[in-house]
């Protein structure tokens, strides 16, 4: 499904990602763990195209999307939930969801109903400004906005950041549900281990722009990963 080959990403002269390769199959959740400043967000942004690759390839269903601009990647089936959620705060909740339907507008009513069924709280708040929602509600809104694009690959950048611990559990359940329902590929970057252990089919640890550890579901070495994540 999504395949990253020898990806290098740099801001000007300073190289952040030093040749990362990984694959995420259909219906699989891949978690990328790492401390702050290790390049997780840079990697996520280069998958959606906000950061350009210096070299290497990103392929979606064997199609090279490395050179495509961001909006074309969305058209090809990549959706993005950024760090800090970045919902459109002066747009209403419903308008926020509608912005995600750039290429699926013909199914507007159906998608909107699905989104509201999945996140009932958004239905209750549909006419409120996005900026007036709580952090957890904004996170749901950002995920709803990404899902209505009917993506094949969903990219989530630190979804638990700034979210109450009680809601983090709900979110893990929700991501598993989304994966099964839509048979989606999900790539998620995280720092919270007990969140990713519950959802990841595969798990990578990132340090200074490289993957230094890989585990698959069932054999996740929590102690070792904790030692990588501790400062």
């Amino acid at each position, binding site marked *: 499904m999504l395949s990253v080959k020898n990806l290098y990403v740099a801001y000007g002269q300073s190289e952040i990602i030093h040749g990362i390769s990984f694959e995420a199959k259909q219906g699989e959740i891949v978690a990328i763990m790492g401390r702050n400043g290790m390049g997780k967000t840079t990697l996520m942004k280069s998958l*959606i*195209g*906000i950061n350009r690759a210096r070299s290497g390839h990103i392929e979606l269903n064997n199609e090279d999307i490395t050179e495509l*601009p*961001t*909006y074309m990647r*969305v*058209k090809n089936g990549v959706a*993005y939930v*950024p760090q800090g959620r*970045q919902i*459109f*705060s*002066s*747009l209403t909740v419903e*308008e926020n969801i*509608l*912005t*995600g339907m*750039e*290429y699926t*507008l013909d199914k507007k009513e159906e998608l909107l109903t699905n989104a509201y069924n999945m996140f009932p709280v958004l239905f209750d708040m549909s006419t409120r*400004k996005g*900026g*007036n929602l709580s952090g957890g509600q904004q996170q749901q809104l950002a995920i709803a*906005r*990404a899902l209505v*694009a009917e993506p094949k690959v969903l990219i989530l950048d630190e979804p638990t950041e700034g979210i109450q611990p009680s809601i983090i559990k709900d979110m893990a359940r929700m991501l598993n549900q989304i994966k099964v329902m839509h048979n989606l590929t999900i790539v998620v970057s995280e720092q919270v281990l007990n969140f990713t252990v519950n959802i990841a089919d595969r798990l990578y640890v990132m340090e200074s722009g490289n993957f230094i550890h890989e585990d698959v579901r069932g054999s996740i070495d929590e102690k070792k990963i904790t030692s990588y994540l501790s400062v």
Partner: protein
Amino acid sequence: MSGTLFFLDIFKDYSSDELSSIFVMQGFSGISLFSVFLLMALGLAIIFGQMKVINMAHGEFLTAGAYTTVLLSDLVTKYIPAALPYYFFIAIMMAFFVAFILGYIVEKLIVSYLYERPLDTLLATWGVSMVMQQSFRLIFGAREDSATMPEWLMGSWSPTESISIPINGLFLLLMSILMTTIVLLLMYRSRWGLRVRATVQNREMSTAVGINSKKVDRWTFALGCGLAGIAGAAFTTIGSVSPSAGSLYIVDTFIVVVFGGAGSIIGTILSAFGIAQAQSILEFFLTGVLAKVFVLLAIVGILMIRPQGIVANKVRQ
């Protein structure tokens, strides 16, 4: 204190009946000015709101719209004089399309390469304005041209004996209300408007939900210029066109946009109305220049207290 006395002083030669007639009539002459200001400022405001580009050539798009109207009126007078009463509606649409297409070309060839460089866009669009002005001079000559107005636009309407209101002012008012409504509907009820508002909020994120922000920029720029074209068509009903006609309006338009709160449509409407009315009513009692001085002083004073303009966008980010 002395200021108050001064203002009372200029009214003392008129009876209260005369004064109310004067206010109504000057008010309506202010409305013609308001209509042109509003159509110009709407275009400038949506362009600035969308891409933070200050379009110094905006006045020339007014001129382009005005010349389109003049050309069409000449053609109609010459070949199908029977159509003269109706041609103006076609002229408005043509003025829009001519300015729209010119705007589209300018964005594609010049402005699109200069985003994120506000000073350079300022210079570049100023250059465009000079090129356009000179082109008008070469094509149409330096003398003033005017469009033949249909009969029904010429007269005036007298609800009472001392009040007479020009029909063209009423027509302009209707036109600018209609255009403002269309722009507001486009902004808040259409997919295009949703794209614009999303891009204005967060350009990076708007591309990440799939919006082609470059295309939105191009259409927004062209639409803003098209509105200036309509302002040009409107302008022909109250003045004659010369190659530099638009540049006379550009400064006032900038003041309207800044005073209204850059990027806010409602603010733009209020500010265009306030400035046009103040100028027009004061003009009757003082000279034109003095009226302008007072209006500008008032604006400077208000902007010192409220630098963000009368209506500011305040949103939690």
